[in-house]
């Protein structure tokens, strides 16, 4: 799976599970927290999805906005973990 495919999968998951209107969902560089797309429960669901889908284990110290607060950042984080 290349970077774009990872980004598409993450984007699709977020749109299906956290966007409840007809909008296109967040842009890839939008903050998922500041735009209210995910809350503290949503973060936990997102973590479970990433770990289950991409076969990576996320350590507690990696649970930062730098790694997980936008589709772009999530994609980059997944890529770095799989490298």
């Amino acid at each position, binding site marked *: 799976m290349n970077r774009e495919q990872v980004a598409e999968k993450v984007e699709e998951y977020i749109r299906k599970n956290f966007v409840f209107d007809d909008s296109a969902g967040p842009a890839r560089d939008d903050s998922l927290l*500041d735009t209210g797309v995910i*809350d*503290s*429960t*949503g973060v*936990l669901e997102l973590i479970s999805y990433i770990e289950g889908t991409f076969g990576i284990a996320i350590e507690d110290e990696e649970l930062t906005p730098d790694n997980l607060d936008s589709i772009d950042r999530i994609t980059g984080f997944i890529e770095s973990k799989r490298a």
Partner: protein
Amino acid sequence: MKFQNTLPALDVEKEIDLTVEFIRDQAINRFRRDGIVVGISGGIDSAVTAILSQKAVGNDKLITIIMPEKESNPISAELAEELAAKFGMKTIYREITPVLEAYGAYKMRDDIVRKYFPEFDGSQKWKLVQPGSLLEKDSLNVYSIKMESESGPAMKRITGRDLRAIVGATNLKHRTRMSVLYHVAESENYLVAGTTNLSETLLGFYVKYGDGGVDIEPLSHLYKTYIYQLGRHLGVPEGIINRSPSPDTFSSETSDDEFFFRLPYDTLDVFMWAMRENVPADIIAETMGIEPKKVNRIFGDLKRKEDSSYHFREMPAGPNRRVP
């Protein structure tokens, strides 16, 4: 207004008089009730609410209710009893464990905890916690179960679904207490006074139709820091004043700080005040001696908590149209 790293000084006596008058006016003129019911938990907010209510309507028109359950810290009821004894308050004692057992609340939670800690047999103490202080860590608000055991504490992160299930079962405690308060209040034609402070109100740190299910909220305009000042002036027992604020809903002692705010109240209140007064982040950073990015991190967290709990503060929506 100048930012000074502390809240502006409060005229405590004036605030007491005004709040007492508010309670009296609500109870007598607006609600036309014969008295007031207050659930007392052994914490500062309920202590201050009860004393102010006593001043507002008189001791013979106040009923306090102590409602422990099997996971409550025993010190909670002891401190509540100490408060009632010191001020001569009429007190009803209602143990709510049987109600919660009938709901299956403990079993639902224990079954989830056992998924993460298979050795859990119900006797070990546990709680839900978030990562450490927002001043120290730029981490997401992710919940973990913290289990106490003979070999020391252990933490395991939980899923969103399990978090919701634990919170839903735990909130049965608050909603059961609400039912008890209203049972007594309706029997006596009394009003239920709530104990939620300003920071809790703004950030949604209460349970909708639980401790938020009341007739009036006499403290919802006051930061916790001010409530401590009122409490000292009113003579709240030292044990209550010195106790660390806690939701007291898990078998292991949890602070409000580690469960929800990720900041101690004195720091939280200053940030809440600064945010509402639009004090620039760089001025706060300079005055408090911390990095501006930490100020922005805290403001972001507070804003998100406020936004995500907006529905707590709304009346239930309905179609706004006349039919036919």
